Each structure stands twice: as C-alpha cells, then as structure tokens.
C-alpha cells in the first residue's frame, strides 16, 4: 500500500508536483498516467526518498520509505533514468545492491533469470541495449522479493515481446497480492495492464479511477451516421441530452451523435424516409479521452496552425 498526502515539490518558482493525494492498493496494478513533464518521475522519486517533498509526505507499507530496515525487501523500484555504472557487469551491479541487504547470490541469479539476462549476466552493462537496460532495472527491482513495486516507464525501449513480458509480469505480481505502481505516458498500454488509474497533469491530480470507469465516463459512446440528408436528420434528432457534432474536418454528409443509440437514430431516419449509408456505434478511443483530460496540462504543446483564408 502506497499513500501520498498532499505531496508537493517546488523548484524555485516552478511547481512540479502540487498537493497530490492518492492511495495505491495491493493486489492491483495501478497506472500512474500523465503527459511528459506531469511530475510522475518526481513523485516516484519522492516516494523513494530520493527527492524530499517541499510539503506533504508519503508512506509505503505504513511508514516512510527511509524508515524501513530492509527497503529492498519492502519496495522494488525501477527509475526512469538509468541508475547503473556501465563499467560493471549485470551480475556485479545486482550483487553490489544485494550485499547491502545480505541477499544471497542465488537470489541475484534468480532475478537475472526472471529478467531473461542470464546469458549476458557477466557482460558489462556498457554494451546493453535500451531494452536490456530496462530488464536489468526490473531485475534490480525484483531482487529483494518486495511487497511493493514502483516502476517508472518500464516498457520504454522494450520490443513487443518485452512489452508483453512486462504486462504479464506486472499482472502476476499483482495477483500474488503485491502493490504494483507503474507510470506511463501511454494510455493504450495502461488500459491493457492496469486495473486502476491515477492521472496527473502539470503536477496535479486529474483523475483517480478504475480503468473501466474511465472508459465509461471520460469517453462515452457515440454513433457515426452517414446520410445524404444530414441537415434534415440533424433537425429531427436534436433534443435534450443529445449532442450532434459535424466535426470541422468531416464531410458534410457525416454526423457524430452522442446521447442516443443507433436504434433510435435508425428508427427516426426510417420514419422520415431518410436514407442512411452508414450507422456505426463507436466506443471512444482511450487515447482521445486521455488527451481530452490532460489537454490543459500538456507542457510541450505542438502548435497546430489555424487554417487561414489565404491558405484555404
């Protein structure tokens, strides 16, 4: 169980994390989601006592991280930035960490095996690919057989096989009753892995919800309608709670209807003899819902040029 109480981090005038309150429960995979620069890594570093919060506090397993007598057995962490000496071999890197807790050599070998690194265990980390570096980070996180895992962007740099491996690993760790807290900026990845979501933007909490609820509420469903009499159908459908959007980029014969279902639209059209070429219920894309939510808080926005008269 991870708990954050009004966690706040300021660097001078810049507030990176502001008043974050959340709970990460055991037995589930909790996704920590937000665009780049949302404060995810800073929050994770504060949980691990690497950065001290300007205000607020956090506990893991009931006490501050630094108060644990065997932190690696309590929490396994993968930090976004590489935290290894490239001149050491993978085995020696893990063994040096293991020595601090008296973790036996067999456990180091087991962790290397779990991460699929046995073949390169005695190679220097210098020659590792990004994906192998991530695997080594995971092996380090699993070293102490911890009850809680805090992983910053674990799928970064992994190939599809590696991504699948992480996904299954996280799920099985959660099934064993562990607390699994994973950050990502990829909504689609989290939708496949996580049960619960904590979404942040510009250091503030935007949502604390389950994946299912997020899908249901943030996006909702709409119906795509293609008809030669779009204007007429639009007038017939208009009513309370019904939202019709002909997107600016969509052709004039196309409507996107929210607040009613395909059956109702079909019946209305048939009653007025309006031909329909297409009637498709659509589930909102998670990626879109995530972008809608975090739109206001994206740090580095890509400027979209406004269509101007001169260009049109």
């Amino acid at each position, binding site marked *: 169980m991870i708990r954050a109480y009004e966690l706040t981090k300021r660097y001078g005038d810049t507030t990176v994390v502001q008043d974050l309150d959340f709970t990460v429960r055991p037995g589930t995979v909790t996704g920590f989601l937000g665009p780049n620069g949302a404060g995810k890594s800073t929050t994770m570093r504060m949980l691990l006592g*690497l950065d001290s919060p300007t205000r607020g506090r956090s506990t893991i397993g009931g006490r501050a991280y630094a108060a644990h007598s065997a932190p690696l057995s309590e929490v396994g962490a993968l930090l976004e930035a590489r*935290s290894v000496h490239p001149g050491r071999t993978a085995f020696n890197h893990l063994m040096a960490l293991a020595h601090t807790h008296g973790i036996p050599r067999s456990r180091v070998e087991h962790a290397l095996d779990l991460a699929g690194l046995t073949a390169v265990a005695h190679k220097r980390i210098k020659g590792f690919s990004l994906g192998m570096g991530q695997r080594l980070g995971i092996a380090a996180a699993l070293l102490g057989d911890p009850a809680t895992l805090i992983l910053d962007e674990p799928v970064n740099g992994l190939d599809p096989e590696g991504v699948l491996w992480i996904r299954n690993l996280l799920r099985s760790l959660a099934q064993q009753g562990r607390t699994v807290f994973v950050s990502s900026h990829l909504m689609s990845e989290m939708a496949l892995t996580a049960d619960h979501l904590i979404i942040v933007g510009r250091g503030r909490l935007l949502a604390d919800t389950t994946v299912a609820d997020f899908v249901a509420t943030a996006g909702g469903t709409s119906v795509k309608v293609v008809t030669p009499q779009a204007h007429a159908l639009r007038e017939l459908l208009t009513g309370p709670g019904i939202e019709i959007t002909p997107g600016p980029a969509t052709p004039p014969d196309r409507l996107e209807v929210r607040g009613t279902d395909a059956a109702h639209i079909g019946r209305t059209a048939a009653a007025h003899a309006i031909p329909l070429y297409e009637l498709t219920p659509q589930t909102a894309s998670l990626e879109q819902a995530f972008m809608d939510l975090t739109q206001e808080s994206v740090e580095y926005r890509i400027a979209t040029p406004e269509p101007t008269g001169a260009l049109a």
Partner: protein
Amino acid sequence: MTAAVSHPGRRPNQNPCRVTTTRVLRSEWHKLRSLRSSWITLISASVLVLAIGLVMGATYTSGGGDSDVDTVVLVLYGSVLGTLCTVVLGILVTAGEYSTGLIRASLTAVPRRLPVLWAKAAVFTVTVFVVMFTTALLTFVVAQLFLHDTDQAASLSDPGVFGAVVGNSVGITLLSLVALGLGALIRSVPGAIGAFVGGVMILPEVLSMLPYDVVKSTVKYFPTQAAGALGSATPLPGEAPVDGALLALCLWAGATLCAAALLLRRRDA
C-alpha cells in the same frame, strides 16, 4: 527469523535482510573491486611509485645534486604521480556514482544515505593504504639495493625511516580521502578533479609565493604540504612537525567528508 525473504502483506519486525553497517561495507567493497577503473588507477599508482623509485636508486651518484634530499623522499619521489592516480580513484568512487546515476540505486538500497558515504570512505582508505604502503616498502627495499654503497644508504631500522615510509602512505591515503570527499561534494568527476588540482595542489604553491610569514606558516598545514611533511625521515626546514601535519591532514579529510555528509543528507539525489 523464519524466512529468507519477506513476503507481500507480512510486516517483518526483524527482517533477516535488513541493512547493516557490515553489509553496506561489503557492498562498497564489491563495487570497488568490480570496476576496471579501480584496478587501473591502483596498479598505475603502484607501478609509478615503484618505477620512479627504481630509476632514482639506479641513477643516483654520491655527492650529486640530491645529496641533501631525505632518503625516504628521494626513494619515493614517484608518490606525487602515484597520488594523482589514487586521487582520481577517490573522485571516481563518489562523483562517478553521480555521473552514472548509480547513486540513485545506492541510496534507494540504503535510504539513510550516510552509511554509503562512510562505507565508501572506509573501504577506500583501507584499500589505498594497503596498496600504497606495500608499494612504498617494496620500493624502499628495492631502491636501497642500488643505494647501499652511496651516501643515501639507509635501512628501515634507521631512526625516522620506517615512520616516514608509513607517513608517506598515510599522507597519500588522507590526500586521496580529501579527493573522495570533494567528489561527493561536487558530484562531477571533471569538476572534482579540477577542484582538487586547483584548490589542493596549485593554490598553496601560489599562496606560498606571497611575501607574508603568516601565509607561509599556514600553508605548511595545507593537505599537500602536510602530506609531504609526513613522508620525510628527517624534519625539513619550513615544514610542519609530523604530529601537527598528521592532525592537519586528518582535519582536512574529516572536514571535507563532513561537508559532503551534510549535503548528502539534504540534497535531492
């Protein structure tokens, strides 16, 4: 103490895997010996001292320009270059962890932080002293094979000689410990090397050129000068007495380490 590892949901009071001083020491020893750079710097230091000592011994002629030089100083001329190597190692031990990011893993494993610094200092001090003392003894004995029929003939049992050989190694070790502390303070390998060369090696030389007696009597207690005083069998004019030099050097190393410790506690990693 029932299980070898903790299990999810269990709240161990007496975790068999808890962090202890001995374990942090073992970890730092493992870190030191598992890097090529440690071996390269230590072997270089040793080889330089030995080689220069041999050259000094083999090329010495009685009544030459070096007759007034202290025997131990003469034989261990290579210490200056050897110190450079161990200084670099000291900086790599601390600042090297920051430049690679390993410090985040180290401090996650030992979140109380200070044991990491103390263990690094302890392991480094013992290692450098053992290597440099062995080297100095060997160099002295071998160089004396050439010097036995000159006016620089000396034996380890002569007054002050063994003490100076020990003092030479103590000096190198403490100077390198200052470098280790600087590495932890500055957290950058090039930055710390620059600070050591500028602040510890060059600055006192510049200061001692100033025509003030106060400055001269202070500068002799600066790290490099104090280390020099420790490695001489006969007290040299203008140098600090051995006990004073040793105390000064210990204080320099202690102060640097304490400053590093204070900042290690306060700064974000």
